[in-house]
């Protein structure tokens, strides 16, 4: 048969028709759809047995009891522990812990920096190398040039580090300070012992907060939120005194805007009115028998803090001040909160003392709805470390930060003084630095100065779990397990009582990491001699078991062991012996009352930049998870630009419109920002969130925004020596 063009075409047409009527196209259509429903690049979660493991979250000082949902051996979710007792609760950060566990920015093995590049090493090698270096220092009688920065001051792990420094021969154990350090000072000055206050917000009927970020991450956020909800249920009042309409201010029944930094003045003014009007007498407390220095205090506030003067300084109207005082003193169980924002910056001692006087005048200590006082946990009862001559020589050297001495007689640790000390000497007075549970190169004010200072230190050992800003500057990293992978005691409060919680490993360590407690013990053992003798435990677990003793059984069952004896009982009844001292010699020594001002010339820097804390942005050692960053509004971060909030009227003065780019300059640095017009901020003030502008971590966080610490410098509180900076003068120029 001759195949011509025509038959060829017919054949083609026939074949096409035949195919169309065959099941083939339909089958293909169906199969392609099924393929789209099972695209190989869309992961399918592996199924397995679901289980729940309870543990204590240690991502913030709150120490909540949480529960972890597991599928076989993987963590899929963190949840609130279903329990009314204990310290159960969860916040956005705790909910992020699974993402933080599997984060790409985790450090997967011990690392050593060789010529600027990270090289994997084993734990053994790392420990041996650190021990070798430490031995050399000891040989040269330089044991005191070892320093350690610890993110926390409570619990066995920081205690092990502190013990290590002592046994090794260095006084330079330094913790990262927070508002808690100032709280302790407030009460050690007024009550003679460093009590930690717990505010019984849930049972109060009138809460006045002097800039405290009750709903912005202060204290234990989960408990604060719960307490606030109870306030709302009971229709009780919350008053927020703050320059910016923060989330706390927004939830408050009344927001009283105030010039930032003058909160202490307002408190003293209020105290003056209370005393003048003798309102404290209505409180049915045996005032004379439980206070001291009242007359002197009375004279002092009467002289300098008349309502007129206070109104002028603070910008709060006179009638608002008097009304506030009346409502406060009329309430059954009023309470005044102090400590700014979420409390990462310690803050002004006098400001907090001033506010606390209101509590004293309302007589609310140890009363329902008032201030309850807890003593520091004392469950760690180790024998003193054994000191050899070198150690003895070393620990008697002066602390580098000057804490506990001269004008810094009140403070125990002053991390904020370290950069200055380092920068003022030619060669570094620190030869080796341990950094554990903290990220000081990011969290400390005036980051540039901090960096310059720390770059002088010849050898830095980081114990961080993440490639954060500090870890990336280290020489050796011994990465800690993430809290879901390790045992650790966590100091917390259960209700109004001190407690210790137990973090338990929920999964086996997923990387080649080492518990920092183990790391210290191993380093000590490698050093031998009295140092090794001081660390007789086999490992951290043994140390922890021995420390907790019988408490551990309770913690295993209930997660928390509550220290019933840790509650200060003064004022609870007429027979109590405690006295609240308004003025005493020690207080006089701090030269009351001085409040710090923002750094910078008003002429050159007409605006004031303040920081604000947000639940959605973690600003401490733990940084944001991808989910948390996803929740951040587009008026805070857009692409990589950070926004500063500004009052529309102020913006108009500077020719700025919503979203426009501007150059923000402070005495400490410059940054390109965008502006967000916000009616909730005072004129002349601009604000910026803390916790952004990371250079470390992963692509989900790094490079987004500016680290406010690069723009703000620290200001030493003249009373305590702690950083009390609440802002800095600034100028914005449209670009």
């Amino acid at each position: 048969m001759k195949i011509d063009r025509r038959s060829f075409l017919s054949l083609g047409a026939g074949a096409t028709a035949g195919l169309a009527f065959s099941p083939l196209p339909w089958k293909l259509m169906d199969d392609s759809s099924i393929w789209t429903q099972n695209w190989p690049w869309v992961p399918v979660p592996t199924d397995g047995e679901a289980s729940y493991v309870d543990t204590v979250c240690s991502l913030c000082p709150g120490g909540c009891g949480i529960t972890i949902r597991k599928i076989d051996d993987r963590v899929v979710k963190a949840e609130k522990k279903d329990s009314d007792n204990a310290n159960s609760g969860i916040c956005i950060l705790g909910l992020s812990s699974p993402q933080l566990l599997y984060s790409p920015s985790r450090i997967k093995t011990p690392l050593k920096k060789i010529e600027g590049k990270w090289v994997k090493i084993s734990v053994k090698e790392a420990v041996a190398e650190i021990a070798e270096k430490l031995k050399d220092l000891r040989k040269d009688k330089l044991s005191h040039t070892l320093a350690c920065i610890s993110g926390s001051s409570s619990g066995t792990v920081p205690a092990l580090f502190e013990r290590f420094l002592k046994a090794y021969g260095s006084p330079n154990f330094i913790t990262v300070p927070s508002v808690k350090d100032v709280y302790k000072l407030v009460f050690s000055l007024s009550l003679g012992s460093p009590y930690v206050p717990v505010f019984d917000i849930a049972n109060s009927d009138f809460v006045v907060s002097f800039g405290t970020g009750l709903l912005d991450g202060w204290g234990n956020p989960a408990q604060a939120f719960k307490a606030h909800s109870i306030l709302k249920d009971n229709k009780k009042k919350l008053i927020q005194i703050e320059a910016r309409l923060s989330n706390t201010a927004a939830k408050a029944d009344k927001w009283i805007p105030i010039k930032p930094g003058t909160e202490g003045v307002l408190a003293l003014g209020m105290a003056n009115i209370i005393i003048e009007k003798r309102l404290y007498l209505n409180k049915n407390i045996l005032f004379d028998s439980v206070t001291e220095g009242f007359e002197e205090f009375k004279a002092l506030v009467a002289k300098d803090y008349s309502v007129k003067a206070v109104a002028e300084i603070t910008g709060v109207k006179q009638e608002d001040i008097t009304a506030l005082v009346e409502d406060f003193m009329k309430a059954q169980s009023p309470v005044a909160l102090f400590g700014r924002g979420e409390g990462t910056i310690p803050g002004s001692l006098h400001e907090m003392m001033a506010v606390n006087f209101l509590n004293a005048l309302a007589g609310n200590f140890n009363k329902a709805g008032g201030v309850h006082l807890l003593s520091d946990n004392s469950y760690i009862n180790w024998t003193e470390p054994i000191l050899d001559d070198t150690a003895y020589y070393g620990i008697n050297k002066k602390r580098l930060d000057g804490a506990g001495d001269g004008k810094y007689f009140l403070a125990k640790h002053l991390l904020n003084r370290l950069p200055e000390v380092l920068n003022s000497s030619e060669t570094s007075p620190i030869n080796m630095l341990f950094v554990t549970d903290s990220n000081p190169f990011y969290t400390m004010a005036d980051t540039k100065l901090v960096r310059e200072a720390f770059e002088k230190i010849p050898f830095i050992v980081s114990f961080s779990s993440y490639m954060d800003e500090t870890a990336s500057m280290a020489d050796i990293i011994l990465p800690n397990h993430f809290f879901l992978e390790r045992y650790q005691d966590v100091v917390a409060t259960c209700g109004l009582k001190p407690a210790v919680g137990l973090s338990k490993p929920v999964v086996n360590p997923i990387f080649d990491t080492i518990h920092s407690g183990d790391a210290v013990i191993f380093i000590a053992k490698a050093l031998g001699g009295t140092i090794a003798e001081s660390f007789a435990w086999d490992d951290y677990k043994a140390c922890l078991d021995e420390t907790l003793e019988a408490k551990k059984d309770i913690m295993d069952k209930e997660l928390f062991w509550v220290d019933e004896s840790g509650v200060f009982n003064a004022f609870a009844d007429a027979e109590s012996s405690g006295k609240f001292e308004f003025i005493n010699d020690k207080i006089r020594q701090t030269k009351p009352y001085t409040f710090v001002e923002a750094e910078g010339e008003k002429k050159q820097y007409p605006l004031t930049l303040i920081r604000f804390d947000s639940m959605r942005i973690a600003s401490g050692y733990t940084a944001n998870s991808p989910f948390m960053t996803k929740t951040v509004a587009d008026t805070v971060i857009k692409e990589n630009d950070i926004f500063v909030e500004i009052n529309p009227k102020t913006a108009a003065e500077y020719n700025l419109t919503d979203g426009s780019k501007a150059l923000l300059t402070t005495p400490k640095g410059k940054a390109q920002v965008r502006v967000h017009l916000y009616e909730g901020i005072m004129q002349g003030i601009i604000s910026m969130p803390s916790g952004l502008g990371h250079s470390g971590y992963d692509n989900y966080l790094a490079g987004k925004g500016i680290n406010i610490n690069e723009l703000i410098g620290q200001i030493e509180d003249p009373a305590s020596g702690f950083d009390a900076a609440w802002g800095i003068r600034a100028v914005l120029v449209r670009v």
Partner: protein
Amino acid sequence: MDSALIPKGVKRCSLGRFSLWMIALTAILLWGVIAMLLCWFKGLNQTNMNDAYGFALWIWADLAVIALGGGAFFTGFLKYIVGKDELKNIINYAVVIGVVCYVSALLILAIDVGQPLRSWFIFWHANVHSMLTEVAFCLSCYLVVLIIEFLPLLFENPKLDRKPFFHHLSHNMHEIMAIFAATGAFLSFFHQGSLGGVSGVLFGRPFAFREGLFIWPWTFFLFTWSAAACGPCFTILITRITEKIAKKKLVKDNVIDLLAKISGWMLGTYIIAKIFDTWYWAAYTLPKQGFSLIDFYSNNPFYGIWILIVEIFVCGIIPAVILISSKGRKNKRLFMTAIILAVIGVCINRWVMVMQTMAAPVMTFEDWFMYYPSWQEVATTILPVAFGAIFISFAYRYLPIFPQESELNPID
């Protein structure tokens, strides 16, 4: 070279010239094809659509192109059902334009959906309550009808016509074309309406929502009506453009005049209905939902009350008046202005019903959403235009589309 394919009695340009024209169009087509492939392989992140703009440029293009393609069904309806026999001189071209419009619409839809390989679910798992289902069914059925209406034309190509089967088939189809046309008109009335229903039923979107008759919101009827009014205008416009390019008259004036007159009346009545609809919406529907008319025409950088005025007055009343008056139709310049305005008017209507619906905030704490298309969206929207030009060029060159062409342009 291709003279064997060219219909008898007409003259066409040289193949070389034709090829050049084709190359230019194909280049544009390829640009669109690249964008289309990007959308298919990389996903719809290639567009500037977002969660506030789930419907955007493409859906507008779809709605507009189908409204403009309405010339086919309405001319068919007038010729076969109403019996306006003069329209046989333009019906072929109306069908060709219709095919182009409907194929384009389906192509755009195939790019627009997130899972094109599953798009047949709309048929298989049809939700009979969804306006979109109605659209999909009627659209595809009507495309089949259009192709049936187009096939006889194809078979009349000299080369094919020589085969007896095609010759007879073409003849038979002509014979019962009224049945097809009637079915097509039925389907068209529905899907044109359903497209109006697409936005009209959105009771969560006060800008689009309209009350109506039974399950059909007023937009259902308004869309059919406006497509019937403006579709023929588009057919006339394309005919005129073709005449301009071919540099000869292809359809007699009386045919165009008749179609334009009917269009004029349709447009006039439509615009009255549209005014009533807008008034009722503004005066009754919106206040019930807590809105006033001006809410939808203020506080944003683009959608002012001007767009309503342009749509109703400039592109509605004015062309209607021109097309209704015989003086207006006689004046060449006025006539073309009216035709173009009517076409623009229906496009604006489809634009606001899609884009302004998405743009206007409904929750009090949201702001207007503004959007501009990405180049991929623009390219894929131009793709059908290029396809249309190619298709029409081929059809014109090789098929006896204009029965009056040889009479009007005798070859000596």
